[in-house]
């Protein structure tokens, strides 16, 4: 059964088409990755699903009901974890979760029980009376999640829930996403961190210029790219590296540094590994490892959209 069904969805702001005739479905129990660079139409789509924006055309169904006609039903069954922290700094962690859960009609002992449960779930069970202003970035992010799940929604939309936090908190959040999914929640997940999406999402859609340009499992998406390979070169230091000169090597389509790994996209049919290594030696870059890989999701994204996810 599909939790979410989007048909011919379009949103225009004046002459600008932010979302262009999107068709999409999310099945129950999926962790659905929704990828797109800034301005691709991701947030506009999410805002329409959350009934924060009215569609210019098309329809959205949640659990089989049109959200325009059953607005309250839709809102009761959706939980939003916004990209920007949406919590009150002058209210305690408990008050924050309790207030937002109360907006869904919860009161009394049930409200208390759900608030406790949500705080425990995100690991803030011992921080009831603490104010978020004293929290670390990761704790605030977790509180942001608790506020969205206390009313037990069927569909949770997480918009970049791990932005700007330490690896430990990120792992905690990713585990929480999996746990929520195990508990029966369907999740729409957006992120700028491709490895996160690869790690947890069961299906992924790529949106660009308001249109869905690819949709499938990560394996299906990767199989669409047959003419590109990834070359990963571990280097000691990249200070002396002239990245632009590498782009001039025949067959190289993109070069980027990710910590101490030089990630190169290249055309499959061109055998250019020797040329690349010679360039690096000429630039006095100390090479530690060389791997030729299947195209990553990031390569898929770059090939399909022509830009990096973080652009």
């Amino acid at each position, binding site marked *: 059964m599909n939790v979410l069904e989007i048909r011919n969805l379009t949103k225009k702001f004046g002459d600008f088409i932010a979302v262009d005739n999107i068709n999409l479905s999310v099945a129950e129990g999926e962790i659905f990755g929704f990828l797109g660079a800034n301005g691709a139409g991701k947030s506009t789509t999410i805002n329409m699903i959350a009934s924060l924006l009215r569609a210019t055309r098309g329809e959205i169904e949640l659990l089989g009901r049109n959200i325009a006609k059953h607005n309250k039903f839709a809102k009761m069954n959706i939980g939003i974890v916004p990209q920007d922290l949406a919590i009150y700094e002058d209210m305690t962690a408990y008050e924050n979760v309790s207030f937002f859960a109360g*907006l869904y009609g919860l009161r009394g002992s049930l409200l208390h029980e759900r608030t406790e449960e949500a705080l425990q779930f995100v690991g803030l069970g011992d921080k009831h009376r603490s104010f978020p202003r004293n929290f670390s970035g990761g704790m605030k992010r977790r509180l942001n999640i608790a506020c969205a799940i206390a009313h037990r929604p069927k569909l949770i939309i997480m918009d970049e829930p791990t932005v700007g936090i330490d690896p430990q908190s990120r792992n905690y959040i990713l585990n929480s996403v999996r746990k929520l999914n195990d508990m029966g929640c369907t999740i729409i997940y957006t992120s700028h961190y491709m490895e996160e999406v690869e790690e947890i999402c069961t299906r992924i859609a790529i949106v660009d210029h308001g249109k869905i340009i690819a949709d499938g499992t990560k394996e299906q998406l990767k199989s669409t790219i047959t003419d590109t390979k990834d070359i990963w070169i571990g280097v000691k230091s990249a200070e002396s590296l002239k990245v632009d000169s590498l782009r001039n090597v025949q067959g190289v389509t993109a070069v980027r540094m990710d910590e101490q790994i030089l990630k190169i996209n290249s055309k499959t049919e061109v055998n250019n590994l020797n040329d690349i290594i010679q360039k690096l030696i000429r630039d006095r870059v100390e090479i530690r490892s060389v791997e030729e890989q299947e195209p990553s999701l990031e390569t898929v994204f770059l090939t399909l959209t022509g830009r990096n996810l973080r652009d």
Partner: protein
Amino acid sequence: MKDIIWLIRKTLISKFRNKRSWFLYFGLPIAGALLSMLLYGNASGTDLRVGIVNEDGNQAITADTIQFVGELKQVRVNATDKTSLNQAIEDGKLDIGIIIDKGFADSVRSGNPGKMTIVSIKGAQVTAAVKSMLQSYIGNITAIGKETSGDQEAFDRIYEGYRQPSFKLTADTVKDTSSTKSVTYQTFGYLITFMMFSAVNMSGLILREKENRTFLRIFSSPISARTYVLANVAVNVIIMLLQIVVTLFFMRNVFHIDSGVSYIEFVPVLLLFGLSSVGLSLMIVAFAQSGAIAGAMQNLIITPTCLLAGCFFPMDIMPDTVRRISNFLPQHWLLDTVNKLQQGNKLGSLYLNLAIMAAFAAAFSLIAIYRFGRNNDTRMFV
């Protein structure tokens, strides 16, 4: 309704947890009342300061008249000359000036009193009271003059008898209420200024919610925009009511300001004005794109209009043009209502003032609703 109460509860808890809110909502209006007392409840208490210029020499009638004024309760008399008198009145050092010209005693004796001028810039009931007491006193002596028809000896005999204690006119207390009324009026001037600022502060919560994104989280729940705005207005009205009650309590029971009118009568009038303030604040929020812009608009709108409407200075000293402009400001109609209540008008008879204030509230709210309705992006969702 449950949702509205839920939102009101949260906002009130959040607001009153912040010490700055207590200062803004209650501290400033009380400070305004205190300031009014310092500025308008002058050190001389309620004594009326009367300056007398005697150009009629040592005539007994003249001397007795001056003595009569001096014996009036809560009146302080100073002898002075014409130039100093005018200057002292202009400077506010004297409330009333009495000029007794040469020939005053003779005019009274002849039964045709004249040669006396009473000067005041207050024009209040107080001057009328002194004038009336003097007229009564002089009228009695004039009657003796008329009866004796120029018979000097008969006049002196009867006048001497009149001066005996058994015939003496009782000196009544002339109570100068203008000072306490000025304090009340000006305190209300400050109060309504602060009410307007707190209204914008409260409605500004909508913008702050937009800026910290809690706004989007609220609207992704089943709460409607109407419920949200109604809750905001309700909190605004509750805070205003508390502001009014606390300020009036302090005026009456702590500062002991005699407003001349029952304090209960002021509550509905001030609350009606509060609705105009809420309407105006919503209008500002509807047009402002951010809290910073709302703050700037608030300063640009509230401070000058309060100045023009007489919230900081008495309207009496304003030029006619400014007075005419102030007719277009809700603050003017509130202060005018207060003034008229103090002059003895009944609240029911001031329906025009009340209707105008209600019209301001309705007009501001309608403009805000119109503007809110035309916003078409998530950041301007309400």
